Structures are given as C-alpha cells and as structure tokens.
C-alpha cells in the first residue's frame, strides 16, 4: 500500500516510515534560532519519539553535522526531564503521556512533524530543543518542602489523615515538574505546577503547618520569575502528562487569598485545605 506521498507502507502496523521533521535549531540563548528541515527514513512505528530523534542524530553525526540537543533522562515517563512541543502540543498528541512515552505509531508514513522547545520567558533556550527549567526548582526552593522533622517511619494511623485528603494529596504528588503546563498555557503561567505542589504538601498534616507561608512564598517566587497570569483556560490540565487537575489551581487561589488576609496565629482557626 502506498500513501499520498508515494511512500511504501505495508499497512500491518510494522511498516517503516519516512517522516519530514521541522526542528527548532538555536545555538544558544542569546542567538536567534530557526526552523530546520530534516527527513528521517526507516522509522519503525514501535520505537519511541526520542528514539526517532536518536536515529536522526546518528544520521547527523555521520554526515558531520551537529546533532539536535534535547532533554531526556529516565525515558520511562517518571522523571519529567523530557519536553518538546510536538505539532503544537507539549509532549505531543497522546494524552497523559510524556514525550519519552510517545511512540511513532501515533504518526503516519509521510507525516510532517514540527518540533519546538517549551517556550516561556522563564524557560530560556539552552540549545536547540533544550530549555532551562531551573525556574521550577527555584519555586520549589522557595517553599516546596516541609521542615517538620517527621523522624523514622511513624506508627501507621498515629496521625490520622482524612482519606479524601490523602487521595487529593497523592494525585497532586504525581506532578513530575516537567513544565508542560507552562509551555501549553497561552500566558506561560506556572499555576498548575505551583497548585500541584501546595496541594501535595498542604493537604497532609506534616505539610499543613507551614501551608500559608508556602503558598505565599511560592506565588511570590513564581511572579518574580516572570511566569504569566492564569486566565483559566485549562490548556495546562489538557496537556499535563500526570493528569493534574485544575482544582489544584482553585485551591492555590483560595489558599493564597486566605494566606493574605488571615494572620498566622489566628486563635486556632484551622486551615481548611481540601
């Protein structure tokens, strides 16, 4: 079977593909970048997207050209190092999937694939498709931790946690800090990431103690770093590979207002986190 572009495709899912790539190439942060076109041949639908880029890079090296720089680490969808905006969507067309877990079977022989870095003022390009996401680490440093000494593994049930809070906290803890939410947001806002962190920590008793300061400090840092303002469009939620919900942003909004207007020792007024 051959498709419109005349490339052979045997139709059983094992056919090797030829793909046309448009990739952002940029030497460094201060230099202007541009889209460059490449063709890769013999791509199996069973390999991952990053393996396809590895093949391209092998070709480039053989031809004596500079390979395309991109971020990756675990390649099993758990570390959040991989990035890339693929055909206009951070982490590509597959929902709840990081770029490293995206497979070439999602594409057809003869497809043109546009690959760009995550773009935001707070994410300057280091080279080609690799951006500096240290801004997210800076937000974490400003409050994404607990300082309560929790000691060794405690006796189970010694600190009761509402089942609902445990679930919500665990869901928020799934955030891998990839920054796709920032990349997808039309305002380059980091609210989903920050919302996930304050929920994950603040919903549990150990993290609740500094809950207010945490919200305050993390939002302050987020603003300083030049992320945009959320306009509730929910593109972040749609691309998040870990399914972090928009309700985490609502919690952040709520807690930020409470943190701003209530004093710390407010006569035992309990913070209602969920």
């Amino acid at each position, binding site marked *: 079977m051959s498709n419109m572009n005349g490339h052979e495709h045997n139709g059983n899912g094992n056919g090797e593909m030829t793909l046309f790539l448009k990739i952002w190439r940029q030497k460094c942060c201060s230099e202007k970048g541009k889209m460059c076109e490449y063709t890769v041949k013999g791509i199996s639908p069973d390999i991952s997207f990053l393996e396809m880029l590895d093949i391209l890079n092998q070709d480039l090296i053989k031809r004596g050209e500079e390979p395309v720089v991109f971020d990756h680490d675990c390649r099993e969808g758990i570390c959040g190092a991989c990035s890339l905006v693929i055909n206009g969507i951070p982490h590509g067309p597959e929902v709840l999937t990081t770029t490293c877990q995206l497979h070439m079977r999602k594409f057809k022989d003869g497809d043109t694939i546009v690959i*760009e870095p995550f773009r935001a003022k707070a994410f300057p390009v280091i080279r080609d498709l690799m951006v500096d996401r240290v801004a997210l680490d800076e937000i974490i440093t400003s409050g994404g931790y607990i300082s309560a000494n929790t000691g060794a593994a405690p006796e189970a049930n010694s600190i009761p946690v509402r089942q609902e809070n445990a679930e919500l906290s665990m869901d928020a803890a799934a955030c891998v800090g990839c920054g796709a939410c920032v990349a997808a947001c039309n305002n380059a806002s980091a609210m989903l990431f920050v919302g996930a962190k304050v929920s994950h920590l603040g919903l549990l008793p150990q993290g609740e103690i500094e809950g207010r*300061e945490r919200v305050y400090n993390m*939002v302050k840092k987020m603003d300083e770093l030049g992320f945009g303002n959320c306009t*509730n469009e929910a593109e972040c939620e749609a691309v998040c590979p870990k399914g972090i919900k928009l309700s985490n942003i609502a919690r952040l909004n709520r807690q930020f207002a409470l943190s701003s207007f209530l004093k710390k020792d407010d006569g035992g007024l309990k913070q209602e986190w969920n």
Partner: protein
Amino acid sequence: MECCGLKFNYFTSSIGKKQIMTVSAFLLISFSIVHMIGNILMYVGPKYFNLYAYTLTANPLLPLAELVLASFFVVHILLAIILVVENYLARPQKYYMKVNTGKGASFASATMPWTGAIMLVFLIFHLLHFRFGTIYTTSYDGKEMRDLYRLMIEFFAQPAYLVWYVATMIAFAFHLGHGIQSIFQTVGINYSKYTPCINKLCLLLSLVLSVMFSAYPIWSYVKGLQ
C-alpha cells in the same frame, strides 16, 4: 499586606490582581442583571419605563452610585490591560506552531481581551447615546421628566445601530461565557461535585443576559416601524 511576617503585596501579586478583577467582574455582572431587569419595563409601556428612569435619576445618591459603578469599570479595565501585557511578555519568543488541544481553551477564553475591548467601545457609545444623549422631555401627572423611551425608539430606528448593538451583545455573550465561570475558579471554587453544574448555570446566565439585551434594540426597532 503582610502575612506571616513576610512582606509581599497581595495587590500586586498575580493571584491578587486576578482576584480583584474577579470581584469587579462580579459587581459588573450584578449591575448588568439589575439593568436587564429594569429594562423589561419598556415592554410595559413608555410611562413605566420613563418613570423608572426618573426615579433612579431623581435619587440624590445617584452621582455616588455612578462613581462607584465607574470605579468597578476602571478597576476591571486597568487590571485587564496590565494582565494582558504581562501575559504577552511572559512568552517573548512565540511558537512556530501552537495548537489548542480542544479540551482547554475555547474561542471565548482565547478572545477575552478582544471581546472586552469591543465592550469598552460599546460602553463609551452607549453612555454618549443614552446617558449624555439628546434630552427629550415628557410629563406624566404634571411631572416633567426625560423621555428616554422616545430617544430609544428613534435611536434604534436606524438599522446600523441595531446591528451594532446586537453584534456587541454576541461579543458580550462570549466574554461572559468564559468570564462568569472564571469567577468561581479564581476565588477558588472548583469541586468535582458542583463545578459542572455551576459552569452550566454560568453559561445560561451569560446567554440570558445577552439575549435579553439584544431583544431590547430589536423590539425598539420593530416598535419604531409601527
């Protein structure tokens, strides 16, 4: 605003600005609802409509109420401009290709600044035409008052104005379609149990407001033909 011994201004923070904008939006929508209900009197008859307007304007507190209302508009518009500029600057290098997933951003959400700008132009002309427009007078039971009803019928007898009003009300529907739902999210109300229902009610409200506000000019036009 100081919190936990930390100095950080709520009013200049990203969330703070959005929440203030949200409060102003809430107050403006409340005003729109009252305005919409008041206008129903035009269906009852010129006398009731004019008397209603007269009662409002005769109130000595009117200038104060107008000032407060104007301040809601000013706050909402200024914050909108600041946020739009900040958001534009947050991504200096734009994407070569960026598509919305279809599960997040909508036409309404993506065009908020534009529909907002249309509403602003509308607002200016609306005030010029009616608040500061031609003064016809009429009298009921010996009381002289402004004949707003006549002004309205004459105004909407011109098809261009009719089309402009209905077109801006479509923009209004889109602005509110995203805006009203956004109020809840921005103040932190998002619970899987209630939010789907809240969102539907918000859409319904924006539809009711824009349909009602479009109906008045259409009705005036038809009345003017008779």
